[in-house]
């Protein structure tokens, strides 16, 4: 998702004001962490400290056992943020990597807001960029407090103390560990402006440190929402409407109630919930339910009908998102003209862990366990339903088995459903709501269907002089709490982000239509860039061909004032051997795209057989994400973005028949499997710029690079995703 890129054009940094807010928390007592071993890192779990650790501020705790615990304000859904934030803290603290532990922060917007979003939440690939200065300053302040405590203990000047690997030393040879000084250091007044390290002296940042979550995620002990058990807990499975907007007309639960293990059946706003002693009886109970649905208010259109309506809309002027020069006039005067219509399907996130949430209601209390990605919204929504104040909602954030945007929901849909069920049984038992794969696949919140119509013109000199683009797709934030912030003059910026830019085309126009469709939509890893990068990079190749230029040559010309784009473009091209001959049937394609503050170029190598079947054999990626805090995590995120992007490009598509979703499980929505995965090489550009995003930026260039590679072999343009089994040859 892209809120950071929409709200804040540049990488966010901690202001002095926000830092003061952080430091004033020191000495105000211990942070109330999750208090549950489920959310504590493995190192802590293995050796529980005898006395509570000392909270130096909202982000750093140190125990007498030398354990440094980093309070992680972001959800981990695979992107490695527990390691990333711990690396930043260990660096400024001069801690040893082996003493680092972490825990997820509680829901507390005042302390743990994402500085790019203004609410507690994870998204827009902003976890490291918004935390970078905040966590450095918090750790540097803690270090200064430790140094002061050491100076007092040893009776020496503070500036004579050195710190390395978690040990403070004075010139005479005496030393003390963090743990030995923690209590005294916690009583030191925090410095107003702690000195930060010069980046040239970084020891951990930019090097390889082992991920802090690797052990727990390889021995089965990592805890996800699905693993939570509470005393007396019931598992809820919900019969959901077959179409978006349909309601329960009536239901008969007599057979469901007869299933052994089923305890209760309740009607809720989203369907009928079966509560049972475990998932299996709940599922059997749901199968035994008879529900009649009122579909009078439901969305009834099918995919073909929607595409037809979108195509018609693209023929009419839309809201103007970009307008440089006179695209229409320049197009009319162009020597050559290219026209293309692109279609992008609805996409499901299909994270491996289907959506779920555990809720326990008590008078004046609502406690939640879930992979919460928007703690602020989740807390507010739960409070409203439970009838308590937001601060009476305690959220225990757990590992999420993937998200790709799905758990960052403005209306907290599955969390709201869980709280609603708990309330419907009047809090008699803790409730674990567990969606089946089919629930998850059919619940909506898809990457919206999009249609693009693009026309481009080349003049007699072979220069691209006109680019006119119309985009049709549902607004993601319309009707949500974020609409006021993210929609300007009717335009949802997430629909047009990445369109047309950054190429030096003198006459560029981008318009958008936002039709109303009753299909719930949401950000999906890299959001608008999923379709705008494809239309831009594929169409640019076609225009370059019309201009008689090669793909790399054309991009270099149009990006001459964009050094970071050029840097990754040239690096990827060089490492991929761009221009070297390939055997018959093989081809290369390139794409470059900026998103979430980072610059990524990818070269795809494909093989297309005579019958049109094809394989993606190799992807070479160059990324400039500023300072790479954990270069190996950056590489992993590029590999993951490439795989997730390829998965969608090859086969993923949610289709509707008379408003009903046609897919149900991995039998008919078929993600990438290991045999589809190409060889991937990632090259990280050295940089001194502040860190920018990596979770999403690896994805947008992938599909256009693959499509451009296929067209390089077949000569046939590709205008629709997913690609499917065979290419036109």
């Amino acid at each position: 998702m892209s809120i950071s890129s929409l709200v804040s054009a540049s990488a966010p940094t901690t202001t002095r004001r926000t830092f003061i807010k952080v430091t004033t928390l020191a000495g105000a007592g211990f942070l109330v962490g999750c208090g549950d071993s489920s959310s504590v890192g493995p190192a802590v779990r293995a050796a529980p400290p005898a006395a509570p650790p000392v909270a130096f501020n909202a982000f750093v705790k140190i125990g007498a056992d030398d354990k440094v615990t980093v309070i992680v304000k972001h959800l981990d859904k695979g992107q490695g943020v527990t390691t990333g934030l711990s690396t930043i803290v260990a660096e400024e603290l001069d801690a040893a990597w082996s003493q680092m532990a972490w825990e997820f922060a509680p829901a507390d917007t005042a302390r743990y807001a994402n500085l790019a979003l203004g609410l507690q939440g994870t998204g827009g690939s902003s976890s490291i960029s918004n935390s970078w200065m905040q966590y450095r300053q918090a750790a540097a302040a803690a270090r200064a407090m430790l140094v002061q405590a050491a100076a007092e203990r040893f009776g020496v000047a503070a500036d004579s103390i050195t710190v390395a690997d978690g040990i403070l030393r004075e010139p005479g040879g005496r030393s003390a560990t963090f743990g030995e000084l923690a209590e005294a250091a916690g009583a030191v007044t925090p410095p107003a402006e702690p000195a930060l390290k010069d980046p040239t002296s970084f020891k951990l940042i930019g090097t390889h440190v082992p991920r802090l979550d690797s052990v727990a995620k390889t021995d089965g002990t990592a805890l996800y929402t699905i693993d939570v058990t509470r005393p007396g807990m019931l598992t809820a499975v919900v019969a959901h409407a077959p179409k978006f907007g349909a309601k329960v007309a009536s239901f008969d639960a007599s057979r469901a109630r007869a299933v052994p293990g089923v305890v209760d059946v309740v009607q809720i706003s989203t369907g009928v919930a079966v509560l049972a002693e475990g998932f299996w009886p709940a599922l059997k109970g749901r199968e035994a339910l008879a529900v009649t649905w009122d579909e009078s208010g439901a969305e009834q259109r099918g995919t073909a009908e929607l595409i037809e309506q979108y195509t018609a809309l693209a023929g009419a002027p839309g809201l103007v998102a970009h307008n440089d020069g006179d695209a229409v006039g320049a197009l009319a005067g162009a020597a050559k003209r290219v026209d293309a219509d692109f279609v992008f399907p609805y996409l499901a996130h299909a994270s491996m862990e289907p959506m779920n949430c555990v809720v326990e209601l008590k008078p004046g209390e609502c406690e939640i366990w879930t992979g919460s990605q928007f703690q602020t919204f989740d807390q507010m929504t739960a409070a409203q339903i439970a009838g308590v104040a937001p601060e009476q909602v305690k959220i225990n954030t757990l590992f999420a088995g993937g998200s790709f945007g799905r758990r960052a929901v403005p209306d907290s849909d599955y969390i709201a459903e869980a709280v609603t069920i708990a309330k419907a049984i009047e809090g008699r038992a803790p409730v674990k709501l567990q969606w089946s794969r089919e629930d998850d696949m059919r619940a909506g919140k898809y990457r919206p269907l999009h249609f693009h119509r693009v026309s481009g013109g080349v003049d007699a000199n072979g220069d691209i002089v006109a680019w006119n683009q119309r985009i049709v797709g549902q607004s993601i934030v319309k009707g949500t709490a974020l609409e006021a912030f993210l929609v300007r003059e009717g335009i949802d910026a997430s629909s047009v982000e990445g369109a047309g830019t950054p190429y030096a085309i003198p006459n560029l126009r981008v318009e958008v239509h936002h039709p109303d469709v009753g299909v719930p939509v949401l950000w999906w890893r890299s959001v608008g860039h999923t379709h705008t990068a494809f239309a831009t990079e594929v169409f640019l190749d076609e225009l370059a061909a019309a201009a008689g230029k090669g793909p790399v040559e054309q991009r270099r010309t149009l990006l001459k004032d964009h050094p970071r784009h050029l840097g990754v473009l040239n690096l990827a091209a060089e490492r991929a051997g761009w221009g070297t001959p390939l055997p018959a049937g093989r081809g290369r394609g390139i794409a470059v795209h900026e998103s979430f503050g980072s610059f990524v170029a990818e070269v795809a190598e494909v093989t297309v057989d005579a019958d049109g079947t094809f394989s993606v054999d190799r992807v070479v990626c160059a990324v400039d994400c500023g300072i790479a805090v954990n270069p190996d995590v950056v590489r992993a995120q590029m590999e993951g973005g490439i795989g997730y992007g390829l998965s969608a490009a090859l086969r993923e598509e949610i289709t509707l028949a008379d408003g009903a979703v046609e897919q149900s499980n991995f039998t008919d929505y078929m993600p990438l499997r290991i045999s589809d995965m190409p060889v991937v090489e990632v090259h990280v550009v050295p940089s001194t710029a502040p860190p920018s995003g990596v979770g999403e930026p690896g994805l947008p260039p992938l599909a256009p690079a693959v499509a451009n590679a296929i067209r390089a072999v077949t000569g046939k343009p590709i205008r629709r995703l997913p690609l499917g089994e065979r290419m036109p040859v």
Partner: protein
Amino acid sequence: MAISFMLNGAAVEHDGDPAMPLLWFVRDRQGLTGSKFGCGVAMCGACTMHLDGTPIRTCVTPVSAVAGKSVTTIEGLASPAGRAVQEAWRELDVVQCGYCQSGQIMSATALLEQNSNPSDEDIDAAMQGNLCRCATYHRIRAAIHLAATRLTG
């Protein structure tokens, strides 16, 4: 009549619905949550356990089908191949969200117990049933090769 079998070396009994999938018996009744639910139709492999050493999809395996047999989950993984796979996974930092990885590790271990030096094609064939939405496939291949080297080296 109760169904009994060995779970990670200890005898267990189930006297409920014999059609209950092994996954839910192990997770909800035995409290071993390392094996995950992803699809319920044997299409993702997150629920993979070993049945007498063979990897099976436990979301579609009724408890009745394992009567008298021996089941191993990620929690009970102790064979040399299993240890080597876990260590290789950690050394190469394969995991991202981690949700599918118990299943990946169970499939990879079973592969190495049958084939001490698998090729990329062997790996793809053995791991084809295990989905990873984080697309850690690239590192899974590398980690299986690394584990194989350690086991034979």
